[in-house]
């Protein structure tokens, strides 16, 4: 999943795939703005065929946390 995340993230922010680790923080390290982040969530919904709950995303800060959340939705 990390590879897919890297592919998606580099479409939104100007970082190299090497900078994208599970510990990377979306806003502080990868320089996402709030709308970039929301758009990427919409794309994750389509890519992984899940329905994301915006409220539950407010505590999520890192790439790893996004992955864990998507995995939890996939059951």
């Amino acid at each position, binding site marked *: 999943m990390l590879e897919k995340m890297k592919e998606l993230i580099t479409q939104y922010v100007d970082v190299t795939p090497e900078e994208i680790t599970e510990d990377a923080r979306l806003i502080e390290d990868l320089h996402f*703005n*709030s709308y970039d982040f*929301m*758009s990427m*969530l919409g794309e994750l919904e389509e890519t992984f065929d899940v329905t994301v709950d915006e409220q539950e995303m*407010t505590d999520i800060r890192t790439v790893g946390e996004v992955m864990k959340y998507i995995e939890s939705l996939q059951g």
Partner: protein
Amino acid sequence: MMDKTSVRTLQDLLTEAAASYGDKVYMREKAGKEFADTSFAQLTENCRRVSAFITERTEGRKAHAAMIGLTSAAYLTCYFGTACMGNVSVPLDAQLGAEDLCDHLQRADVEIFFFDKRYAPMLSVIRANCPMIHTYVAMQDMEEEGIFNLSAVLAEYAPAQWTPLDPESCAAIVYTSGTTGKSKGVMLSHRNLIDNTMCQDGESSTEDTTMTILPIHHVYCFTCDILLGLRYGTTTCVNDSMMRIPQNLKLFQPTTLLLVPMIAETIYKKIKAAAATMPDVPIAAIGQGVFGGRLKRIYSGGAYLNPELLKAYREMGFIVCQGYGMTECSPRISTARDDDTNVGDVGTLVNGCTVKIVDGEIWAKSPSVMMGYYKNPEATAEMLTEDGWLRTGDLGYVDEENRVYITGRKKNLIILSNGENVSPEELENKFSGLDWVGDVLVYAEDDGMITAEVFPHPEYLAANSMEAVTEAFKAHVQAINKTMAPAKNIRRLRLRTEDFDKTTSRKIKRTQTTKGEICG
């Protein structure tokens, strides 16, 4: 054709829209895989039913009713049902925490509360803190004692006969961030909102479709998506989530869009990324595809649109109209015309608006300028002169063609690129009353990060290790962030061991010669 002589209040606007556009779809929402449509006539009739309900609940007395939720026909039914009967609507920020929500409800003297079901968990706190509210109405059905359901109201109440309203009467109280730290309630009259709706011509038509993206409690969205849609007979589709803008653009295929620069920027990044993978396809075609295939016009406001981005959009064949305004002016002061190719300005003054420059600051005067701040004559006097000029707090100038140029902000407000205003004082106040805090300054750094720079109380600093002090501040910032909307979170902490530069009256200077070390 609606004009200023026939439409003077929101009530006139709804009545005329129902008469002119009848069963045409006004609002289109997603309902699972289907559309839920509301016509102009249906919206107006439902508003009259809500008016009848309110009149019964208040026994004919005029009252204030607040509404919180995402954009929907139900939300507008509550809003207009309130204001068109001579009551006052109080649209609230859907991102407010319970504490601020109660504060806004109390300060606006709200008696009736319309809420989206997702706010139901906050009801117990609101009930405990807002004893003035006697009527709670859920916009979606729920079963709880003492709660009315909007669907039942619409089924049970016959449409009220609206009696003519005074255009000068207050239609809405809209909260805005202020430099004093506490948000202020901007009182907008029917005349204010209608003037801003009617001040330009030919901006849209019955052939147009728009997709509304911005928060409904913002007057920019309310006037330019909702009210202009009613005036021109435009179908207004509702974007159900910021996450799904690209998908919804394809679904609704809007012809016009109201955006803030942050969204325009992100969509452009996607267009560029797609163009890189399809070198043979013209970027204009890719752009059109991303926006659904029918887009003609983009309105941008709320924050400054980077000129390069403006040019890039125009090169793709879109009409881009950048505008400028503020809640206190309902909101438009200037907007670009369709044939405008200029870059660097924020549009031409709208009809009926005049400005003058006083000590570099833009002052505006028009029938759209607010009545004042609710129950806050001091703040009103700071913002409005006795002869009706609005001090915008923006520095700039106007050229001989009435184009407006902004050069800076007089106020301290932090303007995020999504158009949200963050009052530094609001965040600084969260550190007050703690005996281990000396002083604090909140500002946006050059990279846009909201930073809190803190100077611990000297005694606390002397008695504790730097690690302990740092940890205490980090924990406090985390606690503050939990109570604030994500956009207003403090993202960087700077700790200083020397006091701030201060003025003679011991106020911290907002421009400091040295900075504290980053520690979180």
